[in-house]
């Protein structure tokens, strides 16, 4: 109980004093996770839409795999990316290990299946509703992709938020490929893990509260914007 109340006051103190280290860590966390989300969206939206619209042999298997990949353990992703980016690995020459770029790559791999799988479901449902009319107007499946994605934009925002949530909450991947290097690759979750390992549970929890607060703020902002837009664009 003591730890928890101390945690809240720690969190408050960090925020009010605009602790420089905290700002740096939060900034990096946002940069890494948002970049990962952007990559995941660029790959995942068309991938999900294509999977929903085009029939091909093995489509069921691909769908099952992508759905299963939503549950990829972050530490496994981190390990795989580490082995690839290690100097002794196939892409070692790029020198990306222990950089934020490596963290972005790992997180993008982690959340692309989420975005693709959710997009697939949304677009498939929408196609059921729209297919006849769109085909009547002359749209083939390929041309339908951007149309359906845009029409489903509100639901897709929720999918994107789910991806962002997963990325900003994970520690396994960024710890391994980033190395939790002070001022270079230390993000909120790895900082929390570090404080736990130092036994400073109050500070760890305080940082956790800040992280949750950040997530709540982002979701709240998105929600209110989405609500207003959805009322207009039912």
């Amino acid at each position, binding site marked *: 109980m003591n730890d928890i109340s101390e945690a809240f006051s720690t969190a408050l103190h960090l925020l009010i004093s605009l602790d420089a280290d905290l700002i740096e860590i939060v900034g990096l966390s946002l940069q890494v996770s948002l970049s990962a989300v952007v990559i995941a969206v660029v790959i995942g939206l068309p991938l999900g839409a294509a999977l929903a619209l085009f029939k091909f042999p093995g489509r069921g298997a691909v769908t099952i795999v992508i759905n299963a990949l939503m549950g990829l353990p972050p530490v496994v992703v981190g390990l795989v990316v580490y082995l690839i980016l290690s100097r002794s690995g196939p892409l070692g020459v790029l020198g990306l290990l222990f950089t934020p770029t490596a963290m972005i790559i790992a997180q993008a791999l982690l959340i692309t299946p989420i975005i693709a799988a959710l997009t697939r479901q949304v677009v498939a449902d929408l196609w059921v509703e729209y297919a006849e*009319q769109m085909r009547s107007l002359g749209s083939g499946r390929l*041309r339908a992709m951007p149309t359906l994605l845009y029409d489903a934009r509100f639901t897709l925002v929720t999918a994107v938020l789910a991806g962002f949530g997963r990325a900003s909450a994970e520690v396994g991947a960024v710890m391994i490929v980033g190395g939790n290097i002070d001022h270079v690759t230390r993000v909120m979750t790895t900082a929390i893990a570090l404080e736990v390992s130092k036994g400073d549970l109050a500070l760890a929890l305080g940082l956790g509260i800040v992280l949750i607060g950040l997530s709540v703020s982002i979701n709240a902002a998105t929600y209110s914007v989405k609500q207003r837009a959805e009322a207009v664009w039912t």
Partner: protein
Amino acid sequence: MTHTTPISTHNVPANDVMPEKTSTPSQSSKILPLRVESLSFTAKGEHLLQDVSFELSAGPRTVIMGPNGAGKSLLLRLCHGLLEPTSGSVRWMGGKAREATMSQAMVFQRPVLLRRTVAQNVDYGLKLHDVPRADRPQIIQDVLNRTGLARFAEKPARLLSGGEQQKLALARAWALKPDVLFLDEPTASLDPAAAHAIEAIVQTMHDEGTRIIMTTHDIAQAKRLADEVIFVHKGRVLEKTPAEHFFDTPECGEAAAFLRGELRW
């Protein structure tokens, strides 16, 4: 397909007054006549449409009638190309396949509109038909004016009432200047005033040369709009006759029962 000629300017009322029933033949059609031969459609072992054959040439407004589940909507979709027949053929004798597809349009019982503005929904169809960007605004404006939707141009389409949404679906089809317009129970979900407005637009389109092929279960509506009737029952076409003849003296007993309101399915 280029659209250099503007929508023909008949003296057509822009409000909802019903013009007299006329039957001006389609002016110029590139793809008609439509020849349907031995058309059959089977799904899950059920013969939903069996051995249907007829020919539709340019001119009259065709209304396909029949009880629920007779196969009217199915027939429409097969003609329009949304479904592939199990056997038999649907052929547009006047033109090649791609041209045929692009010269038709269809309006469904419930309008399917995108989450965009009214004008953007019309624009969507024009874009798909490769209408040059410069020409589109004028076409959209014309067609919205003529369907009484001009004041809603920038409004989100899905905020419109049911009747207005269906008008928009028609406007979207109209903008494409189709040779043939299929309508599947277009007013079944609408109140009488809205239905009336839809019928007026359909009538106008017919007057300007679009070949109308429509299904309905509303006998009164069919009497208002049909020049010829195709009667479908349990997957077979039992009659294809001019309208007056059908409503006064139908050839088959099922049609007679249907007109009396006795045949539900």
